[in-house]
């Protein structure tokens, strides 16, 4: 019942977002998120559920996207005749075909061998995309117009918001299917093979076959995401299948949290927001992204979703509120410490010119600013260090297994 409610909530959020924020920019960001969510979920199918670390997942996204754009061109020139609402399916099929081909030899092994093959394939495809100009269009890519073909119940997709509703539909359907996949024997076995391929073989499953199925399904959904990209942007270039895109999807899935189905969705949303909003406030956003990624790997190995799920026990026991105050006491100086580090970085960057930082104006030429910053940084660091013990105590308290006489079902 709870799960059903969650799905309905998901659908309502997907469909309701453009009602709340209806500017062109907001719709653009939602469209980006839609693409990123499907792509990141498909990646999680590999790494999170199947234990296969891929450095070339953009290949399936990109190939699907390229074919989708070519399909749009075919619709425009009336070589074929179908509604553009089916374009993501075209992308998905191409992603699937590519994955079947590559998977036939790359899924023999997981681990480093798989990672290296994916890296090699990624580089090869990226290089060929610049060489085979007639299909990939060189560095300018190929572009098309989505407004041809038969209208879909009167909608001709002139506006981005119409594409958003189409994308939202595809995102929902894809999410449902990807979730259902985790519940199938194949999906369950993917987890088993990830954790211990030998034992999985003992009970009669071919680890390679299980990996192959995960890999192909993942390729299919990456292709669907590529098709959504084609519909939204109406063009695609080589950057959408090169290592940068492959790296970005890894970041999304990892920051969001690999082990959880919802993790990549969180990662996709956070990274899309960073990419499209943070870059307007600072030129150093890539540096911050890198810092955030490394810190996540170091301190939140299970990502944002893992951090949220850590509180499950406390929540079930109704003790989540007891953590609020300790979090506030530790969190405030921690945020201030982080803020003063960022301020210092920005001051180094804006050497010799005053600039706005939050509500302050800082100037790297002003020694007083440096001193104040150092003072705030040091004070908040020690405050944070001192209160950490209390937080630990509160955490233990909230998660402690009670005596059977006191506790509920636990």
């Amino acid at each position: 019942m709870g799960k059903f409610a969650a799905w309905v909530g998901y659908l309502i959020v997907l469909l309701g977002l453009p009602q709340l924020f209806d500017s062109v920019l907001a719709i653009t960001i939602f469209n980006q998120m839609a693409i990123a969510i499907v792509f990141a979920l498909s990646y999680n199918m590999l790494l999170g559920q199947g234990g296969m670390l891929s450095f070339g997942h953009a290949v399936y996204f990109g190939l699907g996207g390229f074919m989708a754009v070519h399909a749009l061109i075919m619709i425009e020139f009336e070589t074929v005749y179908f509604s553009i609402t089916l374009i993501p399916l075209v992308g998905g099929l191409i992603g699937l075909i590519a994955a079947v081909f590559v998977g036939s030899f790359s899924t023999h092994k997981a681990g480093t061998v798989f990672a290296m093959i994916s890296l090699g394939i990624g580089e090869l495809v990226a290089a060929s995309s610049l060489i085979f100009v007639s299909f990939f269009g060189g560095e300018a890519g190929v572009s098309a117009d989505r407004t041809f073909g038969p209208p879909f119940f009167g909608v001709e997709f002139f506006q981005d918001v119409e594409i958003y509703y189409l994308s939202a539909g595809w995102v929902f359907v894809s999410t449902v299917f990807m979730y259902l996949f985790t519940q199938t024997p194949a999906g369950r076995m993917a987890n088993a093979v990830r954790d211990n391929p030998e034992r999985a073989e003992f009970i009669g499953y071919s680890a390679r076959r299980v990996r192959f199925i995960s890999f192909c399904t993942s390729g299919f959904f990456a292709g669907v995401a590529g098709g959504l990209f084609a519909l939204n942007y109406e063009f695609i270039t080589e950057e959408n299948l090169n290592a940068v895109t492959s790296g970005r999807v890894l970041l999304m899935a990892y920051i969001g949290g690999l082990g959880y189905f919802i993790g990549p969705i969180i990662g996709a949303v956070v990274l899309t927001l960073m990419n499209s909003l943070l870059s307007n406030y600072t030129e150093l956003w890539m540096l911050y992204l890198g810092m955030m990624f490394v810190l996540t790997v170091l301190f939140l190995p299970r990502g944002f979703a893992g951090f949220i799920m850590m509180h499950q026990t406390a929540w079930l026991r109704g003790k989540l509120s007891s953590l609020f105050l300790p979090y506030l006491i530790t969190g405030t100086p921690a945020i201030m410490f982080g803020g003063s580090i960022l301020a210092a970085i920005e001051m180094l960057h804006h050497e010799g010119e005053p600039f706005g930082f939050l509500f302050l104006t800082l100037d790297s030429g002003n020694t007083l600013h440096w001193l104040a910053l150092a003072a705030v940084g040091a004070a908040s660091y020690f405050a944070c260090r001192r209160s950490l013990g209390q937080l630990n105590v509160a955490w233990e308290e909230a998660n402690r297994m009670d005596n059977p006489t006191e506790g509920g079902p636990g």
Partner: protein
Amino acid sequence: MLEVFVFSTLNGLVTGLLLFMLASGLTLIFSMMGVLNFAHASFYMLGAYFAYSISLKLGFWAGLLVAPILVGTFGALVERYALRRVHAHGHVAELVFTFGLAFLIEEAVQFFWGADTKNYQSPDLLDFPLFTLFGQEFSAYRGFMITISVGIFLALYYVLTRSRIGIIIQAAITHPHTVASLGHNVPLIFMAVFGVGTGLAGVAGVIAGPVLTTFPGMAVVLGSIVFVIVVIGGLGSLGGAFVASLMIGLLQSYAIASNLGMPDLLNWLGLEFSRDHPLNDLWTLTLPQIAPVLPFLLLVLVLIFRPTGLAGKREE
């Protein structure tokens, strides 16, 4: 034709030996910790940038001496305070961490030094042609690069096979627990190996910076190729890495020098396609055009047909 062959061989040797300096550290670290260090080429880049900054004040030679030590120390600190922490979460987490580190180092380099190419010059002392063959000069600096690389290979080989430290390291790779029981500080050995490995990458950066241009993209250009070498050579094998480095260096050099391509193949087969053929791009492909991506083709082929690499013992 002979001149092209001779110079291509020389060029291939220089590139190959340079690649080996990176690959040797990487493969050493892999045999220790079982993790491929994605950020290895980033340490190479740091070496070049540190040396550039030092050379502005104290000259090239001071940079050659100090920069690798700085890089090695930084590498050791990364191992001690970050990698060891991530190690608990498994190999995938480690690989992902080094991937993130590579990303972060590139951004940090842009932050501190800017995105422009840096005017990092080779020393005046070596600014003369070593010899002139067929009207083409071979600079003394390139000769110096070859000398340093070969020197490092020999020293490394000696240390690992003939010295006491080398024996302890070798033992720690295969039997860490036994070595620990014998009273050796295995975590310290790990840290030292990581430091030395990254320091070697730093040396490569210092001597390659002036020739291959010092810019923030220099790690990316080299990074995946070094990976390829370590995998082709057989993960964890120093000798394999050496052979693979030279092979890749020469392969690229010869591929560029040759003018062969699909047109020649088609001629030989007696086939001809019009320029409007949909696969025209394929029929006009030449070897020099794809030379830089040949290693990746090799990588995929090796992994499919011989996943342990040329001399690999260990398979994951």
